[in-house]
């Protein structure tokens, strides 16, 4: 027992280190990618404060904020997906299933349909609307799937989520059909998961969520593990199932809503990242949660870098690249490892 535990821990640490290295590599690569070529050496010297004015502008104003947002959102979505899968005991759960992406999209469409002329800082109005859309949808789904005697049952949560998502999706589609071309093309890019936040202020408003919620969720790893036993057994060994579930769900919702609000409607990462992480580090949350986060970061930063560099001058939304590259890879995983 002891040795199994140890080998698991060792594996998890090794995997984390490798992934961290890969993540650093991807971020460096992303920093080097753009319309203007900057050599890695230039990037390094600019980061250390020795760059020309132009290099500083490129790095600090254009590339860095976007990469940080992508990285943070990747972590947020990866961890949120892991929590949702753990809490609902369903390996198909992801933030999309709680209707969060649909809710955020709804928020965006409501904004561009009715509030476009609203006065205020445009840079933050959209995240506010998308965040509100996601959170409201989640609350709605919670309320509908709450049972006074049994709390939130996972299967009910998922079914209600799917139903609400379909309903909201229909309204979103209806509203988006009425938009004129220019606005629609903006909205559709957002929906396809184009990394939207580009400014430091977006970094500033996303960072606290990730920096606080991710460690908090990590501190609850044991409780997440207990869910795997099933509600009755978990309650039997003294876990306060319903309360833990609500707390963890709420954190996951907040995490993914914040990520989606800043980075656009990106799906799939929340589904794939936990699976990959579990393959690498086993089923215990304290080992695979951090890995899920790093995998999310890795995938999203890579996707965004590919999207904005390969198909110039029209950038491809990161969400599309994620689905394009992630889909086949996920299938490969499924075939390789039999469930």
């Amino acid at each position, binding site marked *: 027992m002891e040795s199994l535990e140890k080998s698991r821990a060792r594996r998890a640490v090794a995997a984390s280190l490798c992934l961290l290295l890969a993540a650093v590599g991807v971020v460096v690569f992303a920093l080097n990618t753009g319309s*203007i070529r900057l050599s890695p050496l230039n990037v390094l010297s600019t980061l250390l404060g020795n760059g020309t004015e132009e290099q500083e502008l490129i790095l600090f104003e254009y590339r860095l904020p976007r990469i940080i947002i992508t990285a943070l959102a990747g972590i947020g979505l990866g961890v949120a997906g892991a929590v949702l899968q753990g809490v609902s005991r369903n390996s198909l759960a992801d933030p999309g299933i709680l209707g969060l992406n649909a809710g955020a999209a709804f928020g965006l469409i409501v904004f561009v349909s009715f509030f476009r002329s609203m006065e205020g800082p445009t840079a933050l109005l959209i995240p506010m609307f998308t965040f509100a859309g996601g959170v409201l949808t989640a609350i709605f789904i919670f309320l509908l799937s709450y049972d006074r005697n049994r709390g939130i049952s996972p299967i009910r949560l998922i079914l209600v989520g799917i139903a609400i998502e379909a309903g909201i999706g229909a309204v979103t589609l209806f509203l988006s059909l009425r938009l004129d071309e220019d606005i629609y093309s903006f909205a559709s890019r957002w929906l396809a998961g184009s990394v939207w936040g580009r400014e430091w202020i977006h970094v500033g408003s996303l960072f606290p969520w990730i920096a606080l919620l991710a460690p908090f969720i990590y501190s609850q790893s044991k409780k997440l593990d207990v869910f795997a036993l099933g509600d009755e057994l978990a309650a039997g060994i003294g876990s306060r199932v319903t309360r833990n579930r609500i707390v963890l769900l709420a954190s996951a919702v907040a995490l993914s809503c914040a990520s989606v609000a800043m980075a656009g409607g990106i799906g799939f990462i929340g589904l794939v990242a936990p699976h990959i992480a579990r393959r690498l580090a086993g089923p215990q949350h304290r080992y695979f949660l951090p890995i899920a986060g790093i995998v999310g970061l890795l995938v999203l930063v890579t996707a965004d870098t590919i999207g904005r560099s390969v198909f110039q001058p029209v950038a491809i939304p990161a969400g599309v690249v994620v689905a394009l590259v992630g889909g086949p890879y996920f299938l490969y995983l499924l075939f390789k490892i039999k469930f």
Partner: protein
Amino acid sequence: MKLKKWLFLLAVVLLVGLLSACGEVTNSGTNSGGNAGSTEEAAPSPSLEPAKQDSNAKIASLSIHITNNLLALGMKPIGSVIGGDVKDFLPHVKDRLEGVAKYGVAADPDMEAVLASKPDVIYLDEVLTGDDVAKFEKIAPVVSIDMDEGTWRDHLRRIAEQVGKQAEAETFITGYEAKAEQTSALIHEELGAEAKVMAIRMTAKELRVMGMKRPVGPIMFEDLKLKPANGVEKITDEPYAVISQEVLPDFDADAIFVIISKGNEAKANFDELENNPVWQNLKAVKNNRVYVLDGQKWLDYSSIGHAMALEDAEKLFTR
């Protein structure tokens, strides 16, 4: 208990974070407001000394319409945004923009591409990119033009003043007015002096009647002096109104100008409409007075777009 404490702490910190973000919001709001104000003040000042930018200045254009107005003055920007719909330079001016850097679509310009083209000055549309003036100013001085105010003639003059090409602008406008007069006569000769016309646009999802507002209204009903068909004169709030095919007869137009959006679907929709008895029984259709326009030119509310639209009309009505 431990959990509760955690939660409380978390809630407090998040709230603080949110509040501080909101604080930042208002700050940045006032900042950008201040910037916008200062650029509004700053914008006219360079135009007082147009010599400041000689006609060889490298101009980055963040609006397809500014680009086209520059082309009308015989100038080529160093780089320009591309059309959001066609994902490229607009087809009717593409050949004049060879070698010009592409900045991506106006709603989401590639800042690095702007920087890479090393412009001397950046022209942008106050309405489209006005919020980002501060960002562009880090690259080069910015001239912000409100493209919603005034007509394309005003825009052309404003830009001409900036680059010291006022004479060219006046020549262009005079030439345009003469051409419009001539084309108007040509059309009236064909359709009759009292003919009422409408312009419709078939897109992939709907049928639109173009109203009195830009882009199509002014050239059609003012420059070409055509009379709007019944009901067209009421479409004044929006550039167009979406209609159902059944109400087409109500407009009772003597002639119909048709713009078909790019793409197979719009084309298929129009083919379908042509086979519809409602369409076939229209007065204009029976009299063979349906004219398919080269849409991009008519929809481009800029000096060069309008001049090309006139040429298109001339071609249609010259037998």
